[in-house]
């Protein structure tokens, strides 16, 4: 697969999922399981991505400057600091640790 093929396939899949919502009958939402699974899928995937992006390097687990940066990010989100500020601070923490170690 080329990068373009991956990008086009993934983009069209996401677009079709959006369109599907306008095609299915609203009665689907009266059954709670589909909506609940979709919500929890979002949570599970995001949490898994945090773990992999914080600890993973290819197929290895590596603890480095990303870990303190993410801990700082969690604390700032808990304090309701805006998204873009937290992302910048996290980058600065990791960059700072790498510059001085």
């Amino acid at each position, binding site marked *: 697969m080329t990068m373009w093929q991956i990008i086009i396939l993934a983009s069209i899949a996401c*677009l079709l*999922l959006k369109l599907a919502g306008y095609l299915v009958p609203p009665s689907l939402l009266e059954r709670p399981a589909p909506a609940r*699974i979709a919500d929890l899928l*979002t949570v599970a995937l995001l949490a898994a991505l945090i773990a*992999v992006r914080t600890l993973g390097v290819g197929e290895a687990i590596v603890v480095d400057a990303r870990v303190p940066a993410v801990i700082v990010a*969690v604390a700032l989100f808990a304090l309701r600091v*805006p998204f873009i500020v937290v992302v910048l601070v996290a980058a600065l923490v990791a960059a700072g640790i790498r510059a001085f170690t």
Partner: protein
Amino acid sequence: MNASGTIGGADAERLAAREAVRDSMAVGIATAAYGVSFGALAVAAGLDIWQSCFISLVMFSGGSQFALIGVLAAGGVAAGPAAIASAALLGTRNGIYGIRTSPIVGRGWLKRIAAAWITIDESTAVALAQPTPRSRRIGFWATGLAVFIGWNLTTLIGAFVGDALGDTRAYGLDAAAAAAFVGLLWPRLKRLQAVAVAAAAAVVAAALTPVLMPGLPVLVAAVVAVIVGLFNLLGSPVTDAATSVTQAGAAREGSPS
């Protein structure tokens, strides 16, 4: 109905419309600001500037976009299928939102395709928060279009910035990517069930990282959500069909996705 009542109703309607537009612009600007981080991280993950922009134009859903480039950053092109699957699974919630926004949008297939394209956390949340049918319609379109325009412009800017930076690790961009996912997840952790799923999924993904090809640990972790969701483990006894909307509202207050 008497004359003054009609005028009062019209005034209330105008006020509601104005507030819907104001909400839309606030959410649009806040969301657009973080398109910069998507553009920069996409380039850091190995995409070129046009590929980054294509994703923001067509996929147009922050969570799916970050997931796609997150898996590609870890596993490269070889992790393509897993990257596509991760993005699509995260995109399923937009389908659920569409079921709710469909009656707001109304008839006309071209209009409905355009509406589906901009059906995301933000447009759904702002629309459903408005008090009248007209202000809900205004809130949906104004938010969707504001985020769409802003997000695509800032993606382009971010991609150029990322391209100019070169060695992104030295700037901590890998940590910024992890922090971005924390920001997307944070507003969704209001209930015990969600917190438990998040913790279990993180443990599963980390434990499988040394064993499986990059991208697959994330997909296997998604099974946790299906099991817990199917049997409603740790859930409230009152089934909550409005969960998606609450989540969308939460996403709107906290961070964009």
